[in-house]
């Protein structure tokens, strides 16, 4: 049986030579993501801004404008309506009314009654209300979780390898996270708690790639003491390239089936993850490893302190 080989044996691509182009692309991607975040901003869900959200499904596709007119006619503040997964499902968002829970309950009932009146086929699939206090905490916890896991990773890479690896990994991770957020600013897909979980997972799996390559660089640095750092990094990246390819392929297949078949609620989540996996692979292959050169990694980086002494003894 002949097996599929996506990356031929003895592939030798000059990643290091391309590094200035890659750095430029990375910088442009990161900066434009930041610009997008600042101008368009994220389409934050009720998890993060507080408010009331309901998912309504109709048997027929429904006109958003009509529905918006119905909801706005009730005068409960500025509503936001968007299709969700298809033309027959709509997300309705409203600010929380002042007052206690009874006031919220009243708004929910009034809106449902008004929609049902015009559309007999409406079914209310979910209702979520989040108070401003809780949403502030959710934002805070989300930011803490992302920053903390990045910090923990930087420490671990530093401890397990050397500080250069910690720095290059974190730079690449910041790029991965920023570009993913930029994607959400661009597409205006709803950014909710699930997406924070997706971002954390992207951090985890982008890291996987980087550890595998870093591991190989360390191994080769110990093995080939005389080799220049540029070719050595190229060798390491190329040696691990077929693994990088195969794993990315497997993840893409799994996530792809989730994206196409996993239902509407998970769509944004899966899209984020899929994009993140691709971005993470890019940054591992093109950016973080080449960045090590700029940070001054060389054969001396992993030379055990006692090796020098041992050699001296031997030469005597």
């Amino acid at each position, binding site marked *: 049986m002949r097996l599929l080989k996506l990356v031929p044996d003895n592939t030798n691509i000059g990643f290091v030579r391309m590094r200035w182009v890659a750095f430029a692309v990375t910088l442009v991607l990161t900066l434009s993501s930041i610009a997008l975040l600042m101008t368009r901003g994220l389409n934050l869900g009720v998890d993060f801004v507080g408010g009331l959200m309901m998912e309504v499904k109709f048997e027929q596709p429904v006109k958003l404008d009509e529905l918006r007119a119905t909801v706005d006619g009730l005068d409960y503040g500025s509503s936001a309506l968007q299709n969700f997964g298809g033309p027959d499902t709509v997300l309705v968002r409203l600010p929380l009314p002042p007052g206690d829970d009874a006031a919220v309950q009243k708004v929910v009932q009034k809106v449902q009654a008004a929609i049902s009146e015009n559309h007999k086929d409406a079914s209310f699939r979910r209702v*979520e*209300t989040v108070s401003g206090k*809780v949403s502030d905490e959710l934002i805070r916890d989300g930011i803490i979780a992302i920053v903390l896991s990045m910090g923990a990773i930087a420490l671990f890479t530093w401890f397990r390898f050397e500080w250069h690896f910690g720095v290059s990994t974190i730079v690449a991770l910041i790029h991965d996270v920023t570009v993913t957020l930029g994607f959400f600013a661009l597409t205006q897909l709803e950014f909710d*708690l699930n997406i924070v979980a997706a971002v954390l997972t992207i951090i985890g799996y982008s890291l996987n790639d980087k550890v595998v390559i870093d591991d190989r660089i360390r191994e080769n640095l110990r093995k080939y003491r005389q080799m220049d750092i540029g070719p050595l990094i190229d060798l390491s990246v190329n040696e691990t390239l077929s693994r990088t390819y195969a794993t990315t392929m497997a993840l893409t297949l799994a996530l792809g089936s989730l994206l196409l078949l996993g239902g509407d*609620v998970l769509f944004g989540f899966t899209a984020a993850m899929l994009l993140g996996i691709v971005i993470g692979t890019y940054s591992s292959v093109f950016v973080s490893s080449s960045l090590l050169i700029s940070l001054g990694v060389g054969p001396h980086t992993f030379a055990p302190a006692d090796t020098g002494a041992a050699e001296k003894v031997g030469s005597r």
Partner: protein
Amino acid sequence: MLEFSKVKIWSIIAVLVAGFIFAIPNAFPEEQVQAWPSWAPKKQMNLGLDLRGGSHILLEANAEGLARANIDKMEEDALSELRRAEGGAIAVGDVSNRGGRVSFLVRNVDDVDRAVDLLRNLSMPIGVTGQRSFNVEVADGNRIVLTQTSAGRTQAMESAMTQAVEVIRRRIDELGTREPTIIRQGSQRIVVQVPGLQDPSALKQLLGKTAQLEFKLVDITADPADVAAGRAPAGSQILQMADTGQPIAVKRRAIITGDQLMDAQQTLQQGQWVVSFRFDSAGGRRFARTTQENVGKPFAIVLDNRVISAPNINEPILGGSGVISGSFNAESSNELAILLRSGKLPVELKVVEERTVGPDLGADSIRAGTVASLVAVLAVGVFMLVTYGRFGVYANIALVLNVVLILAVMSLTGATMTLPGVAGMVLTIGAAVDANVLINERIREERRKGRNVRAAVETGFKEASRTIWDANTMNLIVAAVMFAFGSGPIKGFAVVLTIGIVTSVFTAVTVARLFIVNWLNRKRPTTITI
């Protein structure tokens, strides 16, 4: 790396068999599993509300309100302690209760030491730190200042919350909903989850009410003009009638409160819905005495500071039971009866988050999640097969075993599977093969370098293991952070991810190696296709 002792082989097999046994119940409907013989494993995974539909409600206690109530109680206790003091009542004056402290003047300077001793005894020691529930200080010679300590506040909140959980449980049980989950979250929040509940408004009605029932005498000396203007005579307060909203003056001190109720039921009396109640024996005696002393006067039945009704006491009520009539219908009388039976909440609770998922959406999500998982396994399986041949098959067996083990661990530990959890599962399917990819690629490389089959496999496993450990340790760190700081969906995702990381290292490294070693030992191949 290629030797397995007998003990090791059998323990691996034992783990896998146990995995299958505990995962199996998940493949069958719940009713069917319950009918299995008693020795069969029956534990299924918990499904989150997003998968089976239901209501999730997050309640927050009103900490300020509780602190204020506690300070009022501290004032009341302190003053009554001084009134009943042994060796003669201690007279006090100029009582002020403001800014979290109570202060008053002791009329006779000679009494100050006695008063301080009494009050210090009244405060309760808390924990091992020696802090007391409140501090007693003397200022300007004869002014005594009582301040609540932070330990006192924390402890008050703690006990109020423990009680609140109990009260909520009783109220929800009364509604007859099945399997509610009621758990404390943090210091002042309670999560209530009721699967299958579609319209949570009735539930929220029950949860949002303090249900403090008080019987108070109506202040008949109050000037009607003053009452209309909202001014109450000393010792009285203005409350509103629940149905009409009219103001009424009642005495501040309650004759008796709902704490002493034994039972409450909704009853139909002359075509009107009323709530009948019965006091415990102490409460009944007290009720009898007060009604005897106040025949002919009106008293107010007050619920959460609103007057339900204010009937006249026509004759002493000696049996310890009575009825509350007002403008009730079947629903509201039942609600009041439930509230009275379950007792009052020690602290006011507010709904700060609510999520309700309909059963259709949940069922859709389960179906979509299952289909996506199966397709993911299939797609990844085919990919592994065409890429690594026989070694891909071993990786695929490990993959399926991994899914089985995840399900088994989730069932055994009673962890909850949520929609993000399903995503975590699919992701794990993709990620679990990474370990096998690493190993297989390494074996390929070693073969290219000209090593013989056995040596290539051995080196492949050895070299790849280090990388696998590094990568999975980091992923565990991320999952731990997610679990610690994540709420709701993030937690559900982190749980599955964590379990998946651990089981995948076992299946992808240990189990796959066992298969490969077994094959090598039986066939002794001199060449391999990889």
